[in-house]
């Protein structure tokens, strides 16, 4: 299993926060430090001062908000700015083998938590994919068309499957943390 490391250079929302300290718009990261699941739009406005320490704690904060959660069916999801990125776990990609075929939903597809949203197939096995949360598909990983094996080579990074909106953030609480998932995998391996 790969541990989530805080990114050395904060990206996205913090850069936005830099700009927003001037413009005064909502700094995503700040409100996300409260709870990972509060959507962007309802965050209170907060003044933001940038300094090295804050940047460091921001990057740790970002790592926290992006903390991977796992479903019992071996999908993972990380969320950023209300968008979830979904993939399959290392345990799942190892059991499946080299992916040679994939089927993913169209952008705009609405999914309920646990809905079947596609499939991955290796030479020897086929497996359905189940949505860890409810939401709408915003993007599918086009890189898989050239190289479906990305799912095996980099299941947590380049081998992501779909991005989706998170229509009910409380569903994130029903998913397992990385620690809990590790224990879960151990229990089923026995």
């Amino acid at each position: 299993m790969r541990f989530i490391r805080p990114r050395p250079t904060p990206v996205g929302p913090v850069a936005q926060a830099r700009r927003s300290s001037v413009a005064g718009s909502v700094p995503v990261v700040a409100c996300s430090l409260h709870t990972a699941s509060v959507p962007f739009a309802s965050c209170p406005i907060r003044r933001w001062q940038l300094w090295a320490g804050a940047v460091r704690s921001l990057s740790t904060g970002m790592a926290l908000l992006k903390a991977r959660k796992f479903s019992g069916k071996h999908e993972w999801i990380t969320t950023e700015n209300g968008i979830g990125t979904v993939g399959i776990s290392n345990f799942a990609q190892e059991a499946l083998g080299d992916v040679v075929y994939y089927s993913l939903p169209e952008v705009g597809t609405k999914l309920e938590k646990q809905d079947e949203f596609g499939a991955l197939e290796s030479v020897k096995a086929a497996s359905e994919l189940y949505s860890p949360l409810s939401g709408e598909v915003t993007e599918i990983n086009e890189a898989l068309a050239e190289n479906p094996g990305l799912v095996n080579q980099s299941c947590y990074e380049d081998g992501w499957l779909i991005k989706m909106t998170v229509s009910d953030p409380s569903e994130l609480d029903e998913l397992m943390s990385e620690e809990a998932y590790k224990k879960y995998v151990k229990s089923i391996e026995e």
Partner: protein
Amino acid sequence: MQRPASLATLLGFRRPALPASLSRSLSCAQDVLRRTPLYDFHLAHGGRMVAFAGWSLPVQYRDSHVDSHLHTRRHCSLFDVSHMLQTKIFGCDRVKLMESLVVGDIAELKPNQGTLSLFTNEAGGILDDLIVTNTSEGYLYVVSNAGCWDKDLALMQDKVRELQSRGSDVSLEVVDNALLALQGPAAAQVLQAGVAEDLKKLPFMTSAVMEVFGVSGCRVTRCGYTGEDGVEISVPVAGAVHVAMALLQNPEVKLAGLAARDSLRLEAGLCLYGNDIDEHTTPVEGSLSWTLGKRRRVTMDFPGATVIVPQLKGKVERRRVGLMCEGAPMRAHSLILCTEGTVIGTVTSGCPSPCLKKNVAMGYVPSKYSRPGTQLLVEVRRKQQMAIVSKMPFVPTNYYALK
């Protein structure tokens, strides 16, 4: 995704039901699997073990399935196939015994020649497929499927007893050897380094006893289950690890497991008993008419002959065919439809072909749809995909013939 219940299930290997007696004795130890002489060797080499036909066998090692498959076709791979049943039939009436159970012309086998044959039942169904070799050592050497171990042994032993009671000279012995399959274009060259006999003189489907890397009493048969040139080596248990290690010393050789074994045989158009042929398929339906001996077709003296032989001239309702498609892979139990949309048959085995980068499969369709080139549909993932009836093997074979 759902966790695969067992990789063996995913591989499409159907596990045959255990006979009642065996089930009872295993009831206290449901999970006890038989181990081959190479069990520890597999673990030491990173083998991922799964249950298959009551045995613990490696499905793959450290290399990926696809790498292992391609390595076999380009270099050579070593498979542990010790789970298969090896028997020797002795006595003056050994051919009579064999012919009472199988469809082939066993009497016509030249010394040290072998053939693929079929055990059949009175209804014309296939009980198992096997290789029988007429050895020059005074016995028939028979190799049959692990999944049919008890069934085949009972079949042969019952017939031995029946013939013996009628005064025939025949007996049977189970060979408690390991069986190693070395398959691929480099196989012969790799083995040559460990044997004195000239392997150029051992063509496809012939067999000889020889010393292999210092282990005497090994039987080497030029056959296999991959479509490539190669051998199966029957090794006394005490020498099995030594021979495996000696073969693995050669950089051309890599270990391969059940996963590669299945995708290789499917590309080669070879049946898997229990999936592509079973007790409910006749040899003609199974596109295995060639196994029916020329003489036997006339004498009709094999089980099920009265059902099978008429099928050669008349029509069979369905035939086993090869199928190819792009898109989602066809798997066992996928439905086959004609282009008008009516369900006409089922897929019995299928997988993405690592060599062809298309999906290949075997299935049964009514005879009128069985001609290569016929366009059909296969239902995969609730969608219908174009598929085409294809000749098998899907990938050209490389069996070694005497030049």
